[in-house]
């Protein structure tokens, strides 16, 4: 997180706000409740308390406008800049302006969810600047998440409590749920959800995030899954790239999504039984495509199936125990991928490296072998 120069903050914890006008996109009562809920995001973790007034000048004046709207920061029409707000100070300080050339929504993921935009802007009104943690609310780029299950990320809690301290009214016997954190590539205990290649890049999935690694530089860029594929769920089970179809398949529960490049393929999600898996399989724990054999291996905990991509049929004689096909491996496979003739089976934070052809075990590595810290 970051704050503004001089750690600008309000000299009092009791602040007023006033909604000066409304967007035609939503009802008055929807806007009223969204603005109150967005302020409560910050009140819940600090001593800050907000009171609404209906006339005169409030600390936080909330308004909707387009293009040149009375400050020196004109909006830019649809998309691009969605809103802005001013750090704590008298006058325009604390005020939040929303670009009414956007389509703001109450609940849906279409348009821009006003609650998420407002909660971010009120972070500025309280004194937070932008965070470069892609999972933080104060990250400058908009990304949709369900407002009904919103929980202020740890990075934002750290920032606002740096300025104002904790909420003194929290009942120790009934604490708030743990704030969501952003997985750390350098965490030696990191257990990845899924791994896949994508046209030369590698993708490592964890929770709401994934790291992309460029072949030439090896730098790992962390992003929200929903920033690229809003329809794809978080906490994936498995993923693999098929050289046969030039697609990446993403698995969760009994559903599979297909992406081509960075676009979602129409007609997905489908059932995983569409890939030949028996209906008894409730979820896939890992998957990889073997270039030399053209087979896709689906791992279901300690067992695996072999699927012929060209014939699009399951090979007979499966499922087999993983340890029968990959000597030296014991237990459940949590993620898997193939790269440059090597097969990597992930078991928690450990990675077993095999020759793809001979299935000979070469090394046991850690995640950091790929996710360079």
């Amino acid at each position, binding site marked *: 997180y970051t704050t*503004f120069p001089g750690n600008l903050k309000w000299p009092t914890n009791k602040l007023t706000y006033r909604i000066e006008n409304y967007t035609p996109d939503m009802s008055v009562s929807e806007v009223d409740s969204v603005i109150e809920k967005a302020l409560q995001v910050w009140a819940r973790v600090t001593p800050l308390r907000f009171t609404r007034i209906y006339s005169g000048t409030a600390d936080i004046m909330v308004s909707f406008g387009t293009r040149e709207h009375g400050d020196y920061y004109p909006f830019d029409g649809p*998309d691009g800049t*969605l*809103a802005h707000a001013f750090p704590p100070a008298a006058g325009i300080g604390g005020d939040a302006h929303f670009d009414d050339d956007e389509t703001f929504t109450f609940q849906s993921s279409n348009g821009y969810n006003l609650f998420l935009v407002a909660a971010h802007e009120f972070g500025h009104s309280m004194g937070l*600047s932008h965070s*470069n943690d892609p999972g933080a609310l104060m990250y400058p780029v908009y990304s949709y998440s369900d407002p009904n299950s919103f929980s202020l990320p740890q990075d934002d809690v750290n920032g606002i409590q740096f300025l104002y301290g904790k909420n003194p009214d929290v009942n120790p016997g009934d604490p708030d749920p743990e704030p969501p954190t952003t997985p750390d590539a350098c965490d030696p205990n990191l257990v990845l959800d899924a791994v896949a290649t994508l046209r030369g890049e590698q993708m490592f999935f964890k929770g709401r995030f994934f790291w992309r690694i460029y072949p030439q530089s090896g730098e790992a*860029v962390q992003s929200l899954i929903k*920033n690229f594929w809003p329809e794809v769920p978080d906490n994936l089970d498995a993923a693999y790239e098929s050289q046969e179809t030039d697609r990446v398949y993403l698995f969760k529960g009994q559903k599979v999504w297909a992406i081509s490049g960075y676009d979602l393929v129409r007609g997905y999600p489908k059932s995983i039984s569409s890939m030949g898996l028996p209906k008894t399989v409730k979820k896939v724990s890992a998957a990889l495509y073997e270039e030399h054999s053209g087979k896709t291996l689906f791992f279901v905990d300690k067992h695996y199936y072999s699927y012929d991509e060209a014939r699009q049929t399951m090979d007979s004689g499966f499922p087999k125990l993983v340890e029968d096909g990959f000597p030296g491996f014991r237990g459940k496979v949590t993620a898997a991928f193939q790269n440059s003739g090597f097969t990597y089976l992930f078991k928690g934070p450990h990675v077993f490296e095999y020759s793809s052809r001979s299935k000979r075990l070469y090394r046991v590595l850690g995640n950091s072998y790929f996710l360079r810290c």
Partner: protein
Amino acid sequence: AHCLPILPPPGTEQDKDVAEMYLKRFYNLTEQRGRVFHRGVSPLGEKLSEMQRFFRLKVTGTLDSDTLQVMKKPRCGVPDVSQ
């Protein structure tokens, strides 16, 4: 023979305008004309690197597709660097 101007690939000039506008709005890039190069790096290159560092992209100081993709995403209008 008349030599025709080699037109930049479609979008390049436009992309450069997008980048300059973005860096002016969010990274305090000032007017480009006559600006001094620092250690051989243009002000635009410096600001591009600063933005790439913030978004944990590959820091190249040049306008690559990943950087442009981030610049085109909807966002908050408050600068990423304090002004």
